[in-house]
């Protein structure tokens, strides 16, 4: 296994754990549930962007994507908490 493949495999395992965590937190009460599932979704998307799509090799671009992702998640959390 090459170092690049090892990194991808570690990313995949982290994604599986985060996906499992997303399904397990549905027992939380509403405000915490919204924050937990959206934080986990953000972590998963960040891993896909930086590792699967290779944005870790372009840190400035990665930061740009990270800001847009964070803005989306903040809007989604605000709308979810307001409901």
């Amino acid at each position, binding site marked *: 296994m090459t170092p690049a493949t090892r990194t*991808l495999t570690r990313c995949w395992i982290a994604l599986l754990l985060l996906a*499992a965590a*997303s399904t397990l937190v549905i027992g939380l009460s509403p405000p915490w549930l919204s924050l937990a*599932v959206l934080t986990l979704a953000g972590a998963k998307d960040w891993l896909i962007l930086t590792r*699967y*799509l290779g944005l870790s090799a*372009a840190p400035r671009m990665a930061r740009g994507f990270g800001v847009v992702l964070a803005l989306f998640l903040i809007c989604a959390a605000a709308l979810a908490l307001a*409901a």
Partner: protein
Amino acid sequence: MTARQEALPGDLKMWVLILSELAVFGAGLLAFLALRLGDPAGFAEAQSHLHRLGAGVNTMVLVTSGWLAAVAVEAARAGQRWHLRAGLGLAVLLGAVFLTLKIQEYAALWAQGISFESHAFYLFHMLLTGFHAAHVLAGMVLLALVAGLATPRAVEAGAAFWHMVDLVWVLLFPVVYLL
């Protein structure tokens, strides 16, 4: 390489496509959440008819297929044609598993007498997940095509599209199924 010279990895056109698709789905998901403000109880009741565990399993299926596509890109760069085709073939297979679970979900809702006309929740659910499923199908065709071409550039572009499908589902799953 300086910061000014920093370039996006892969094909710029594919990144434009990824950004535009993320913008479309992002707007759809925020519209869904905004609409929910008008009827939170109705949305919660409608959501209770969805199979959350099945959707969670589908998340694992998609991230695993994404990993296989990413590994196939590494194999393409190393000139390992058999490995790249095996990786992409398995990724396509998992795409088919995802669609099968999705069809079962629609069939279960249909069996309960639920359609997109039953509630605004189902209209958005079916529009967002149906549009996403269409992208999964398109991604499967694209991965099959680039597996045939087997060049690093083609495999990178096909895998990037597949990762975009992953990115969208990872946001769609919590918003539609969990919140």
